[in-house]
C-alpha cells in the first residue's frame, strides 16, 4: 500500500530524470549525433528556399543584388536569363534532393535509435520484474505495472525520438530563419519577433490547462466504460433484478457527462486555435505593411519582401508546437519516474553469483527459524525446528494464515528468514545459489500458473527435451491424462488466457505432472491437491511413492487422510509448531489434530446413527 502511494506522487527531480533518460539510452545515444547533424543541414537548407525566390525575383527578373550565399550564386551564373532560370531551377531541385536525403537519414536514424532504446528498456523491465523479490511482487498491482511497461515506455520512446528531436528541429529552424532575416533587414527581423513569445507562452499555458481537462474527460470516460463493463459482466444480476430501465438511464447520464466534458474541450480548442491563428495573422499583417512601405521606398527589394513573408511563417507556426512540447516534457518526467520505480529495483539475485552448488540429497533441517515480513511487527514464523531425512514424507497441517506456506517459501528462499538456520545436507541454504536451490527443491503451488501455451508445452516447460511419451507418462501419474485426452485437441489444447480454462483441480494436476518430469531430491506440495477429490489425491500419492522413493516430500494439506500417512506430521498454529509426530501418536494426544480426527469419525458415527 505504501508503495502504491509513492507511485502516485512522483518526485519531480528533473535533473535526476534527465540523467535516467540518457542512462537508459546507453550507447545508442551516440546515434543522436548523426541525427542532429542531419537536422542541422536540413534546417539550413530549408531557410535557403526563400532566398532562391528572392534571387529569381530580384536578380534574374529584376536588377537587384542576390542574398544567396556566394557559393550558390556562382553556380547560377549564365549569359542569358532563361539559362539562369533553368540553372536556378535545377539547383533548387538539387538542394531539395539533398534536403530530402538528409530528412530520410535523420528520421531513419532517430527511428532506429528510438526502437533500439525501447527494445533494451522493455527487455530490462522484463528482467527486473522477473527478478524482483517476493515482497515487490506481492506489493504491486498487475494492471499498474503493465501500464508502466507499455504506456510509459511508449511515452518515453516518443519523447526521446520524436518530441525532443522536434524541439531541436524547431529551435534550429527559428534560429536559422532569424539569422537569414538579419542578413536581409535588421528592423523587420525585430518586428517579426513581436508576437512569437506571446504565442509560445499562450500555447504553453493552454496545453497545460487542457491537460487538466483531459484528465477529467478520461475520468468521465472511465466511469462510462466501467458502467458498461459492470453491466455486461453482471448481466445476470441486471436481468435477475429486472433493472434494465435503470441501467439505461444511468448509462445515458454517464454517456452525456462524458460527451459534454469532451465538448467543453472542443470549445476551448476552437477558441485557442482560432485566436492564435488570428494573432499569427496580425504578425504577418505587420510584416506585410512594413514590408510594403519599405519596398515601396526601395529600402528593401520585392524579393526580400517575399522572403520575409516566408521567414515569418517559419517562426510563427512552430511556436504553438513548441508550447505543446513544454507540456509533453513534464508528462515524460512522470513516466520516467514511474519506470524508475521498476528499474531501480535490485532484484533478488544480487550477490548470488558465487554461492555454493553442493550436491543435494534431501536431508532438511530447520533450526530455530523465525521470520517476519518487512512491513509487519509480529513474527510470521516463530522458532521453528524440525528435521526431515532423505526419503521421508512430512505433512504440515494448520489453518489458513497459520504460516504453513511461508515455511515452504523460506525453504526455496522466496523469503529469507531473519533468525535461525535452514540446512540442506548440512549446508545453510543462504549459502546456496538461489537458482540451483530451486532447481533441486520442486514446489507445486496451490494456485499454479499455467502459461498460455499448449498443455504439452506447459508440462515440457521444466524439461524441453522430453517427448510426448514422457509427457503423457507423467500426466498419467498426476491423474490428468484422461482429462487432457477429453479435450478436443488433446495435448495440443491451448490453455491460459487465449485457450481453454482449466478447472482448479486440473491446473493443480498439470502442475504436478510438470514437476514430475525431472526428478528432484526435495518436493513440496503447497496445498496443491486441495482442488482434487480425495480419491484422486490418494491415487496420485500412491503413484508418487513408487516413482519417487528417494525424495524428501513435504505436503501442506487440509486433509487428515492425506496427513495421516506421513512419516511425520507437523501441526502449525500462529507460526509455531503446536504438535508433531506420527498419526498414531497424535490421535492419542489432546490437541487440534485429535479434534479434527474426532470430527472426521463423527461423520461416520452420525451416518450410523441415521441409519438405525
Amino acid at each position, binding site marked *: 500500500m505504501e508503495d502504491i502511494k509513492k507511485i502516485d506522487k512522483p518526485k519531480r527531480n528533473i535533473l535526476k530524470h534527465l540523467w535516467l533518460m540518457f542512462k537508459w539510452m546507453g550507447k545508442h545515444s551516440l546515434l543522436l549525433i548523426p541525427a542532429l547533424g542531419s537536422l542541422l543541414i536540413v534546417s539550413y537548407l530549408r531557410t535557403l528556399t526563400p532566398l532562391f525566390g528572392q534571387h*529569381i*525575383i530580384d536578380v534574374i527578373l529584376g536588377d537587384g543584388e542576390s542574398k544567396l550565399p556566394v557559393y550558390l550564386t556562382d553556380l547560377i551564373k549564365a549569359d542569358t536569363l*532563361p539559362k539562369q532560370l533553368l540553372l536556378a*531551377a535545377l539547383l533548387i531541385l538539387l538542394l*531539395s534532393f539533398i534536403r530530402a*536525403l538528409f*530528412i530520410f537519414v*535523420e528520421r*531513419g536514424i*532517430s*527511428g*532506429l535509435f528510438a*526502437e533500439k532504446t525501447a*527494445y533494451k528498456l*522493455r*527487455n530490462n523491465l*522484463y528482467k527486473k*520484474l*522477473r527478478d524482483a523479490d517476493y515482497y515487490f*511482487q506481492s506489493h*504491486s498491482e498487475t494492471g499498474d505495472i*503493465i501500464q508502466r511497461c*507499455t504506456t510509459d515506455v511508449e511515452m518515453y520512446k516518443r519523447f526521446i525520438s520524436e518530441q525532443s528531436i522536434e524541439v531541436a528541429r524547431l529551435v534550429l529552424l527559428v534560429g536559422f530563419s532569424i539569422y537569414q532575416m538579419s542578413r536581409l533587414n535588421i528592423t523587420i527581423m525585430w518586428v517579426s519577433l513581436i508576437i512569437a513569445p506571446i504565442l509560445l507562452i499562450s500555447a504553453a499555458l493552454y496545453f497545460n490547462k487542457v491537460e487538466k481537462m483531459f484528465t477529467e474527460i478520461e475520468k468521465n470516460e472511465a466511469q462510462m466504460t*466501467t458502467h458498461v463493463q*459492470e*453491466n*455486461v459482466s453482471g448481466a*445476470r*444480476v441486471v436481468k*435477475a433484478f429486472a433493472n*434494465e*430501465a435503470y441501467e*439505461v438511464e444511468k*448509462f445515458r447520464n454517464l*454517456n*452525456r457527462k462524458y*460527451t459534454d466534458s469532451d465538448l467543453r*474541450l*472542443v470549445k476551448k*480548442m*476552437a477558441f485557442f486555435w*482560432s485566436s492564435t491563428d*488570428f494573432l499569427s495573422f496580425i504578425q504577418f499583417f505587420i510584416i506585410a505593411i512594413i514590408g510594403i512601405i519599405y*519596398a*515601396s*521606398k*526601395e529600402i528593401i527589394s*520585392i524579393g526580400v519582401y517575399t522572403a520575409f513573408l516566408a521567414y515569418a511563417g517559419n517562426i510563427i507556426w512552430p511556436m504553438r508546437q513548441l508550447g505543446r512540447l513544454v507540456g509533453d516534457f513534464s508528462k515524460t518526467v512522470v513516466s520516467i519516474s514511474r519506470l524508475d520505480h521498476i528499474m531501480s529495483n535490485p532484484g533478488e539475485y544480487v550477490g548470488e553469483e558465487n554461492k555454493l552448488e553442493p550436491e543435494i540429497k534431501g536431508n532438511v533441517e530447520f533450526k530455530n527459524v523465525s521470520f517476519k515480513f518487512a512491513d509487519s511487527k509480529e513474527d510470521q514464523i516463530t522458532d521453528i525446528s524440525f528435521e526431515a531425512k532423505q526419503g521421508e514424507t512430512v505433512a504440515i497441517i494448520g489453518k489458513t494464515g497459520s504460516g504453513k506456506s511461508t515455511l515452504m517459501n523460506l525453504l526455496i528462499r522466496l523469503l529469507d528468514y531473519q533468525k535461525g538456520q535452514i540446512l540442506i545436507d548440512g549446508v545453510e541454504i543462504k549459502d546456496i545459489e538461489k537458482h540451483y536451490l530451486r532447481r533441486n527443491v520442486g*514446489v507445486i503451488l496451490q494456485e499454479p*500458473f499455467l*502459461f498460455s501455451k499448449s498443455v504439452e508445452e506447459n508440462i515440457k516447460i521444466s524439461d524441453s527435451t522430453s517427448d510426448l511419451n514422457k509427457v503423457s507418462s507423467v500426466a498419467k501419474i498426476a491423474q490428468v491424462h484422461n482429462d487432457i485426452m477429453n479435450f478436443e485437441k488433446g495435448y495440443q489444447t491451448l490453455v491460459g488466457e487465449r485457450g481453454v480454462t482449466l*478447472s482448479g483441480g486440473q491446473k493443480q494436476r498439470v502442475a504436478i505432472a510438470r514437476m514430475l518430469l525431472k526428478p528432484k531430491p526435495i518436493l513440496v506440495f503447497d496445498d496443491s491437491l486441495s482442488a482434487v477429490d480425495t480419491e484422486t489425491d490418494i491415487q496420485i500419492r500412491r503413484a508418487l511413492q513408487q516413482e519417487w522413493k528417494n525424495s524428501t516430500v513435504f505436503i501442506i494439506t487440509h486433509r*487428515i*487422510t492425506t496427513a495421516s500417512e506421513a512419516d511425520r506430521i507437523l501441526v502449525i498454529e500462529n507460526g509455531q509448531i503446536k504438535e508433531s509426530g506420527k498419526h498414531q501418536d497424535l490421535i492419542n494426544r489432546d490437541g*487440534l489434530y485429535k479434534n*479434527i480426527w474426532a*470430527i472426521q469419525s463423527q461423520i461416520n458415527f452420525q*451416518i450410523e446413527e*441415521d*441409519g438405525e
Partner: protein
Amino acid sequence: MSDYLQDEENFTSQKFDWLVWKKIFMFMKPLKKTAILGLLAVMVLAITDIIYPYISAFAIDDIIRPNIDSTVVDFSKLPLLITYFVIFMIVQATMVYLFIIYAGRIQNELAFSIREKAFNHLQELPFSYYDRTRVGWIMARMTSDSRNLSEVLSWGLIDLVWGVFLMVFLTIFMFIINWQLAIVILAVVPILTAVSIFFRKYILKAYRSIRKVNSKITGAFNEDITGAVTTKTLVLEEQNYHEFDILTSDMRKQSIRAHLIQAVFFPTMLFIIFIGMALVYNVGGNMVITGAISVGTLYLFTNYVWQFFDPVNNIANFYARFQQAQASAERIVSLIETEPDIVDKEEVIAKYGTIFEYKRENFEPLIGKVEFKNVSFKYNVGETVLTDFNLKVKAGQSVALVGHTGAGKTTIVNLISRFYEPTAGEILVDDVDYRERSIGWLHSNLGYVLQTPHLFSGSVMENIRYGNLKATDEEVIEAAKAVEAHSFIMKFEDGYNTECGEGGSRLSVGQKQLVSFARAILADPKILILDEATSSVDTETEQLIQTAINKLLKGRTSFIVAHRLSTIVHSDLILVLDGGQIIESGTHRELIKKKEAYYKLYTNQYSEEMLELSKR
C-alpha cells in the same frame, strides 16, 4: 485484447459496403444541420486559404511595383489592402472556430448516439448472448469502434471536404489567372496523390502489425508478473526471457520498418513539391521575362504549389482510414442488429409491457410454485444437457442441487430464471407456462445471488438498493440488518456511503456476499436463486453467512446450487444430479440412509469442511 484483434481481421472487407453506411448515416440524421454548417465553414476556409497569398501578390503588383517605377511614393491603395487583410483575418479566425466547434460536435454527438443505441440494445439481449460473447468484444465496440467511426465521420470527412474544395477552387482560380502555369502545377498533383496513398496504406498496415505484437508483449508482461512465483519455483527465468526477447525483437524489427517507411514518405512528398516549384520558377520566370505575367503572379503560383500538400495528404489519409472505419461500422451494426432469441410474444408485451416499461398494474401476484414438465434443453453449441426433465416444487420449498461440475445444476437455474428457455417441454410458474407471462413479471419477482457476488462501483447503499430501486435508506439498512451485514458496514469510516470500488474490489469476499444477500432480501423475491460460493472465508464471516442464508430462504421458493454442508442439510429437498438427470432425491436423512451417490459425495467432498468446523 487478442480476441479484439482477431475480430478486426474478420471484419476487414475491401469493398465499399453501402448497406452498412446507410445504417450508420441514420445516426447522422439529427446532426444534418451541424454537418451542413460545418461543411460551409470549411468551404469558406478553403476560399480564404486561396485568397491569402493573393493579397500579397496584389501588394506586389499594385502597390510596390508602381511605387518603385514612379518617383512619388503613393500609398493610396494601402487602406484598401488593410481592409482586405482585416476582413480576411476575421473571416479566417471565425471559420476556424466554427469548423472546430461543428466537427467536434458531430464527433461527440455521433459517438453518443451510437453508444446509447448499442447499450440499450445490449439490455434487450438475452443472457445467452453474454454467455457466448466476451466482455472484451462488447467493450471494444462501445469504446474504440464508436470513437474510430465518429472521428472519421467528423474530422476525417470535414478534412476531406476541405481538401477537395481547396483543390477544386485552387484549380479554377489558377486557370483563371494563368492556364499555362496551372497546367504545370496540376501535372504534379496526381503523382503527389498516388505517392501519398501508396505510403499511407503501407504505414497503416505496418502500424496494425505493430499493434498486434504489442498486445502480445502486453500479454507477456502480464504472464511475467502473475506467473512470477511459478517461474521462480521452476527456474524458468532464462527460458521465459528468451521467449520474451523473440517478441520484443520482432517489435523492434517491425517498428524500425515503419519508421523507415515514414522516413521515405515525407521527403519523397517534399521532393515532388519541389519539382513543381522548380517548374513554376523556370516556366513562370520565362513568362515574366516575356511580360506574359507579373512578378506578383509568379509569387502567387510558387505559393500555390505548396497549397496542394495538405489537401492531398488529407485525402490519402481519409482513404487509408476509411477501410478501418468501415470495419468498425460493420462491427457496430452487427452488435446493434443481433436478434434477441428470448423475447416476449407480442400479446404478452401488449399486456405486461416491455423490459424498459412494465405495466405493473397487469402483473399477477407470483406465488412461487415451479414445475418442470418434460423439459429438454441444449445450448446452441454442444450436447443436450437436460432430457425429459421433470420436477415439481411447492411454493416456499427450498431445493438444494448437488452434483459434479457439468451435472446440469447451472442449467436448471438458468432455465428457472428464463435466461434460457427450454428447447422442448415447458416450465410452469404458478401452473402457467412462464412464456405466457412477461420476462419482467418473472424477474421482478426473482432474486439471484451469484457464486461470486457481483457488486457495482458505487456506495454500499446503492449496491443494496439495486434490489429495489424504490427502497428508502431505512429499508436498505433494515435489509442489511436482516442479513447481519449492518455491523460490518457501520465499521467502515463512511458507513453506508463507503465506495465499493470497481466490481466491489474494496470489500472482502465475505463482505461482498453479505451485501449481495442484503440486496436479494430487499428485492423480497418470491423465487430465490442462490449459487453458493465455494471460496472459504474466515470463521466469523462464515457464521454470519450461514445465519443470513437461513433468513434469506425463509418463506421463499428457493433453488440452491449448494456447496455448504449446513445449507444442504437444512433444505427441504436435495436433488443429486448427474448428466442432466436426477439420480437421487430426498432429504438429507433419507439420502444418507441410502448410502449411495449422495453418501459418497458427502463423505468425500465435505470432510474438509469438517476440519474447518473443528476449529471453532
